[in-house]
């Protein structure tokens, strides 16, 4: 097929975001099987989507269990809100799991986590963070490549409940990454 009508970026992004109906999905796939140019573009978008799957700062207890099952070197740290507690990411460690504890999640409808630096610059927002209502904690999976972020990291955890204002807990955790 000549590419007289190449797939648009919108179509390719929608394809990888599972945002096409059945007919549109079939049309995109037929095109990708026939067109080298659009195949290359689709591969680029897929790489971006795939990279995102490797960057979850907030994880569920099931995801933590899966990480442990992989035999990785994991260091667990417990943190209490409103207390500044520095941590060091040692060289031999694959993941540090920050347990943001002391949260009342029993009536939570939604938990929002904002990762920012101490000046207030937001690095990441997780508006629907995974949580276990009985655990009383949110899990942050800290990875070595997060060294690219500013070191004075603050986690704002907002617990949203029905008919009540969100409850905010702030965890200030300055990071040092051992080289």
């Amino acid at each position, binding site marked *: 097929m000549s590419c007289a009508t190449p797939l648009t970026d919108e179509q390719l992004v929608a394809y990888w*975001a599972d945002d096409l109906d059945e007919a549109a999905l079939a049309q995109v796939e037929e095109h990708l099987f026939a067109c080298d140019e659009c195949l290359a573009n689709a591969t680029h978008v897929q790489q971006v989507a795939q990279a995102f799957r490797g960057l979850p700062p907030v994880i569920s207890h099931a995801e933590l269990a899966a990480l442990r099952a992989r035999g990785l070197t994991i260091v667990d740290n417990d943190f209490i809100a409103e207390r500044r507690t520095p941590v060091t990411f040692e060289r031999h460690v694959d993941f540090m799991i920050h347990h943001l504890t002391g949260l009342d999640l029993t009536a939570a409808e939604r938990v929002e986590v904002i990762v920012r630096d101490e000046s207030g610059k937001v690095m990441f*927002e997780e508006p629907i963070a995974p949580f276990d209502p009985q655990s009383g904690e949110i899990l942050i999976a800290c990875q070595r490549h997060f060294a690219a972020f500013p070191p004075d990291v603050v986690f704002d955890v907002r617990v949203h409940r029905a008919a009540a204002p969100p409850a905010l807990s702030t965890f200030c955790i300055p990071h040092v990454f051992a080289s």
Partner: protein
Amino acid sequence: MPPDLTLETHADLVRRVAAAGRDHAAEAELCRRFAPRVRLYGLKHLRDEDRARELVQVVLVAMIEAMRAGRVEDPERFDRFVLGMARNLASRARHAETRAVPTDVAELDVESVLPRHDELDIEALLHCLQRLETRARTVLHLSFYREKSADEIAAVLETSVGNVRVVRHRAVAQLRDCLGAAS
């Protein structure tokens, strides 16, 4: 000097294989053309690189066997024929939740027909992510990691579905530009 098969159409290559019963050069050229397509299809529907590569293996084996047996009814529409096989075999793998198992032509070397796909440089990606608006980062995270639909994202961010789609595709374009510049 062997003929340059890269200039031949899919249909001509399929006919070569069918006429001879087997034609390693033509088969290899078709494998080279379709392996990246089947891999991408596998990544989309099986969500895993290893399973996508297994799908490449079984689809290419089935493709070669079909050509050798003269079972390709319309060589002019060979791309759709291969897509159909990918759909069937991926669906089978998904529903059975078992890994696809290569059949007779199992010596097929998938790595030799798949182009090398470099992983994105995570540090470069993080650098580029910090240049996006927070909302754009959030939309990408919810789309590709949390696998939320545009409707769900619009509800949680209190915006329209159309806005989510616009933010999403612009953010991907910005990331691609930034990553391209970084490399």
